[in-house]
């Protein structure tokens, strides 16, 4: 049977466009989301505010009380005003920002690690281990998060001593909050990871890896996990936002991070009693929270689309 194509110019393949790497593709798609890019810029601004801003004042200054100037509206010496015991709100928002952001990041890390571990083990090994882990996950789902946060927050509030880190003294309640938020937010991610593992482990590349004797740990972390990074990244990003809000709620109610350490949340504690007389008490920290969480939500949404684009058209 003769070759259909005996013309050389036909046999020369079309010049292929250089293929973009996966991360380049993701970045290109991310950039298309204007809101996500705005979010990134905004978040960077927030981070700069909290980190660089610290070079203009010191932490001890943010804790200095001076009841003679308590509840003063914004003026030059105190651009954001002062709070109920005369502390400078601007400095407190700077240092408070550090804590809020830190809590958000580390709580997210706890949550992601737990969610991925539990989901991966349950999904990969299946059987009784899976049932047990899923029962546990369901039980945790059944418990409402805020009440649990409150209970645990109150329980562990005074139990841990202050500790120094990165040149600052953190009250022990920071660790408590991080642990509590992290330990109550992992369930959704665990479910997703488990579902992905269940389907991915049936794929041929896993069978192939098994055939050549790859150990289970390598398969889980080296083969299957990289294929399910998209929901983990998105969940982690949004997890930071949720953690920041959760911390704000708990601190607002007074069982989160304890003064004098400032966080954006505990600065709002009691502010509703002064709503008429001192709105600057809550406007500044509140706005900062909103801007930060907003920017993270934008980024998370952009990542979600960039990492997992829907098929745009079906050209049939």
């Amino acid at each position: 049977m003769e070759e259909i194509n005996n013309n050389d110019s036909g046999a020369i393949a079309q010049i292929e466009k250089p293929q973009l790497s996966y991360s380049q593709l993701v970045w290109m798609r991310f950039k298309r989301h204007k809101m996500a890019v705005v979010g990134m810029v905004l978040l960077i601004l927030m981070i700069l505010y909290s980190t660089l801003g610290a070079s203009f004042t010191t932490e001890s200054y943010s804790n200095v009380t001076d009841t003679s100037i308590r509840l003063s509206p914004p003026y030059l010496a105190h651009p954001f005003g002062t709070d109920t015991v005369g502390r400078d709100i601007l400095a407190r928002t700077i240092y408070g920002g550090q804590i809020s952001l830190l809590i958000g990041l580390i709580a997210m890390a706890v949550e992601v690690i737990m969610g991925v571990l539990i989901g991966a083990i349950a999904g990969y090994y299946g059987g009784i281990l899976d049932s047990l882990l899923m029962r546990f996950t369901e039980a945790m789902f059944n418990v409402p998060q805020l009440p649990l946060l409150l209970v645990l927050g109150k329980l562990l509030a005074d139990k841990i001593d202050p500790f120094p880190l990165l040149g600052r003294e953190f009250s022990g309640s920071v660790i408590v909050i991080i642990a509590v938020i992290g330990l109550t937010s992992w369930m959704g991610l665990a479910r997703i990871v488990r579902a992905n593992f269940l389907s991915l482990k049936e794929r041929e590349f896993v069978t192939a890896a098994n055939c050549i004797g790859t150990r289970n740990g390598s398969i889980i972390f080296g083969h299957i996990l990289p294929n399910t990074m998209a929901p983990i990244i998105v969940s982690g990003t949004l997890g930071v936002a949720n953690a920041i809000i959760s911390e704000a709620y708990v601190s607002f109610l007074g069982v989160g991070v304890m003064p004098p350490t400032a966080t954006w949340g505990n600065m709002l504690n009691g502010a509703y009693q002064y709503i008429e007389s001192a709105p600057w008490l809550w406007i500044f920290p509140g706005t900062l929270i909103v801007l930060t969480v907003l920017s993270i939500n934008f980024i998370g949404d952009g990542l979600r689309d960039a990492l997992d684009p829907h098929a745009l058209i079906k050209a049939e």
Partner: protein
Amino acid sequence: MFRYVVRRLLQAIPLLLIISIVIFALLQGSGDPLATLGGRRTVRPEERERLARILGLDKPIYIQYVYWLVGNDWVKIDVDNDGIPETAGTRKGILRGDFGTSLVTRGEPAIDIILERLPNTLILMIPAEIFILMTALAIGIYSAMRQYSWIDQAVTAGSFIGYSMPIFFIALASMYLFAVNFRKWGLPYLPTVGMFDPKVGKTFSQVVIHLVLPIFSMSVVSISGWSRYVRSQMLEVTSQDYIRTAYAKGLSERKVLVRHALKNAAIPMVTLLGIEIPFLLGGAVVTETIFGWPGMGRLFFDHLTRSDTPVVMGILMLISFAVVICQLITDIVYGWLDPRIRYD
């Protein structure tokens, strides 16, 4: 089907037990209810100890749990500390419906305290949830059907912002605007505290007007979240092949939406709703605190900070029980909506 329901209920029992044990253990470790029990009068140490013995607070944790669970009317307590138990216990335990007495109000049955606040929470949460769902459905469906229109883009941007705001920020901002500043500017303003004006009494219109700001604060966040979810569900459903088939049969947009799309989109939404409803009972702690609404959320928080174990346990168990029941109902509704799921 009946066997499935029974099986689920049976499975729930160990779950509830474990939850109760865990929470009980956590609560016991945190704080001393006797510290505030005396009120303004200082309490003599002997009285304190006597109280502790009556309430069973001197016993080890697991015994306390057992008493909480099944009561202590089948044992005797040694009240006068002479080594001989002589007074009969009076508690029947939660399994027999006795939630114990509040450690804070000294003797008032916990269940009464809870039930007194329960209607207030329902008055707040049920209209709020209905409002949230109706609005979110409308916005989400409209957004999905008119994708990329300027309304859709505005709604998407708006819901992002709304979703990123902590409730207390919206509460404070709305209080500031609608109550404080409206009053300053001479406009009719909305009340910010409590369920009704004590001078006027608990009338229907009083309650309604006091509901406005709290419901508004809660709604912004929830509507933002829900409408985005509804929108994405609708978009996913309407991109399915069977929707194309429905159009190919000559159905109008409205008919396709109502007869073909909604039922499919509702399925995952029902699951979410089922998870959210029982948490309504927890009330919204933050909202109730800010607006001084006398509901279960504030009750929970107040009694938690005073280590009132019976009341706190009572509320949490109530919520957990509601969660279990709601999940069961959700699964049944799910099976009814989606014929591919059949329980045996």
